[in-house]
């Protein structure tokens, strides 16, 4: 798993980051949405989407009970349908990592925790690092950090870079996902630049959004980030993962993301190791589609567990 390099991360030459052709991105995305997916491939894609899911609950009202229930859902997505994969990870706040870790023992499902003053990231470096260390010490396998969008937007790229590198170090063996919060970065050029910055600073994954800001993940934004991952891979040979999060609520949309992933980065990334969906509502829609493919009848949420 660990792709950590022993060498110090090196600040990238941002002037070399190519500009994003917005019209081209729109056209490319429109094409991904028109692919015709036949039934067999669809079922395969839906199962893959389930296995790539980071089942998420990030609410102020979360309790240990709620998290345990979500963990149960992650392990038993829909017992009426045998042989379903389990989800990739359960994503919670640091204070609930221990609960999730216990509930998931022996299941092969990772515990992901948001950290670094999620969702705004407006705190001191010291607090953010302590937040990360706490989540890791509680047993988190993956850390989802947010970047300081304020610093990024006023051009303090070195600050953001150092921060990511420092959090990466605090993560130890835990995987680091860097949330760019694309809804606040305003342009595709900024998103591309932030992606490059995060990858050079040591991110194992780059992630679109916290889910707390609109717009969250869109296909346009995800495409730009996937292209950044591809170019980074060409340049350095290191594979970086991608996690669109927020707003992906339907099975149809999830399949379109998978098509985009396959056609932009190729088969290597078509695994939960390198691609994740951050979602709270998506799982049930995917399950409803899978059951529909088998029974022939469209399904109702009444017959699927809420979390």
């Amino acid at each position: 798993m660990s792709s950590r390099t022993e060498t110090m991360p090196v600040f990238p030459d941002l002037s070399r980051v190519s500009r994003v052709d917005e019209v081209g991105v729109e056209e490319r995305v429109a094409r991904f949405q028109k692919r015709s997916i036949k039934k067999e491939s669809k079922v395969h894609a839906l199962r893959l989407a389930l296995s790539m899911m980071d089942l998420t609950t990030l609410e102020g009202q979360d309790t240990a009970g709620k998290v345990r229930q979500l963990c149960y859902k992650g392990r038993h997505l829909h017992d009426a349908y045998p042989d379903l994969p389990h989800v990739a990870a359960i994503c919670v706040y640091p204070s609930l990592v221990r609960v999730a870790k216990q509930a998931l023992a022996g299941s092969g499902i990772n515990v992901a925790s948001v950290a670094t003053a999620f969702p705004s990231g407006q705190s001191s470096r010291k607090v953010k690092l302590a937040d990360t260390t706490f989540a890791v010490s509680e047993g988190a396998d993956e850390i989802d950090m947010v970047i300081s969008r304020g610093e990024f937007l006023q051009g303090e790229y070195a600050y953001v870079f150092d921060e990511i590198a420092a959090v990466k170090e605090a993560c130890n063996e835990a995987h680091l996902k860097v949330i760019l919060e694309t809804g606040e970065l305003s342009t595709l050029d900024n998103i591309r630049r932030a992606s490059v910055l995060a990858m050079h600073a040591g991110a194992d994954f780059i992630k679109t959004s916290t889910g707390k800001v609109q717009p969250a993940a869109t296909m346009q934004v995800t495409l730009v980030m996937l292209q950044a991952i591809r170019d980074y891979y060409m340049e350095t040979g290191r594979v970086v993962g991608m996690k669109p999060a927020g707003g992906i609520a339907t099975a149809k949309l999830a399949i379109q993301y998978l098509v985009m992933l396959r056609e932009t980065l190729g088969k290597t990334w078509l695994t939960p190791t390198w691609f994740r969906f951050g979602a709270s509502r998506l799982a049930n829609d995917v399950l409803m589609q899978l059951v529909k493919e088998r029974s022939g009848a469209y399904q109702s949420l009444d017959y699927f567990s809420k979390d």
Partner: protein
Amino acid sequence: MGTTEHAKQPVPAEAGSGAGKRLPILKTYKLYIGGKFPRTESGRYFTARAPNGTALANLCLSSRKDFREAVVAARAAVEKWSNATAYLRGQILYRIAEMLEGRRAQFVSELVAQGSTETDATAEVDASIDRLVYYAGWTDKFQQIFSCVNPVSTSHFNFSVCEPTGVVGIVAPEADGLLGLVSNLAPAIAGGNTCIVLASNTRPLCAVTLAEVLHAADVPGGVVNILTGTRDELSAQFASHMDVNAVILCSSDAAEIQATQIKAADNLKRTIVRQSSDWSAPEHQSPYLILDTQEIKTTWHPIGS
């Protein structure tokens, strides 16, 4: 939709000299889903014909995916519509009647084009308007009649009240394109349900025009969804969709009724079969038709000791 032969086109008026004859604008009949007027996702159309075979218009031949979209819209609308005050629902139903009254001529001409006589068509439109007003009046009264306080031997205050069933699928009757539809639609929405209606396949024009009336009458998007297409393709979907809570099937075909009942059993859908040769008959206007798509909830409330 291309050029369609069109009966009963308005007489083209002469435009200014030298400009030639005015080309009449043909209406495109679309679906009504979630408060919007989309075309069918399948891209298929069928031609509605007058009894003598003249083409009247092209309409969307809905697919099961259109139906699925309609159910999603109807489900999303349930919470708000069922929680709206009875008073508001009554106002909106009355508003539909008002808007329908304002477009009487159009409905009459559509019915005539589809084979009714002028007298019958006028009577059908009038009866439809009156029926809407009738159910508008019932929205805040049927609960009092159908709810009750039950005597029990324990120290409980025990009462039963009506709650809407939820999403109701309506396969509208083939005859009486307007009145048949309104007679089944009005009691369902008066009771707080949301609907997906499959319009008459042979007399579909009024259904789509009614959608425009509903839209203009402040009926919230998704409360009524109207599809045009064939029963052969869609009635099985109405019966089998797990997120539909009740289906009203207007049919006298024993095989169709049986097939619907069997499929509906999967999620214990309430199946209501209605048949009639005359939808203007008094039995098609009754608070008991509201009760058809209501569930009775009984509450045991502890009191004293």
